[in-house]
């Protein structure tokens, strides 16, 4: 990953993008990473300041 990702214009091939989106619709959902409750941890982090 790079800092340039944030500032640069990103151009993508629309067909590849659509293919990837279709692939993700058919994904093995058991491999999904379930988000953790980051907001609680964020609140705890702010209390350290």
């Amino acid at each position, binding site marked *: 990953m790079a800092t340039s990702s944030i500032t640069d214009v990103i151009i993508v091939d629309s067909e590849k993008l659509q293919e990837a989106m279709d692939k993700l619709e058919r994904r093995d959902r058991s491999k999904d990473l379930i988000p953790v409750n980051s907001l609680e941890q964020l609140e705890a*982090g702010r209390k350290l300041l």
Partner: protein
Amino acid sequence: MSYTILDLKSYLRYNSPESIVSDLSSFGPGKGCAELYLFLQESYDENGNRNDNFIDFERNNLCRVYFVLADKVENANGKCVLNLKSGMYPVYGYFSVAVKTLYKNNIHADQEILPRNNTNMYLIGHLCKNASYEWGKGGEYMLQQCFGIIESAYQKIGMGYILIECEPALVDYYSNRNFAEIGVNSKTGLYQMIYKVVEKFPDII
């Protein structure tokens, strides 16, 4: 072991931009530490141009930066810690999240470039676990923390996908975790991959 997330925006509300570099101490040899230090301090390229850093991004609201901190320690032991008023906290990793517009490149010449030809996604600009610390599934944990932040934004404002740009060596890692490749950044050589936002509590239909 428990973890806490500290956002750079909140840190800067109470501290000067310069203090974040001095508050980070005892840098270990890990790649993550060196990059974090570089992204936070003022630096210049070989042509004398000032490099963008996390402080600039925060000030300009281009992204948000988060540190994942572990429990307070008494002794840094040469590893990367963030010194806060209440003590020293090991920095286990960091990530940045932004919103990015992706421009689609097969628009016909006679077509106007309209908003429908572009798409917006969340961007994980950086995601790094600190190599100075040994922790089993640290990378996955960092992703789950990052997804937690994104999912809360998703619930409020929408947008269903996340974009990352990663080094070729990490393509398999992300592919095995349900990321799908969409191309290669011609400027940086980084692989572009997307992930569908997963909800913490999906609706039961």
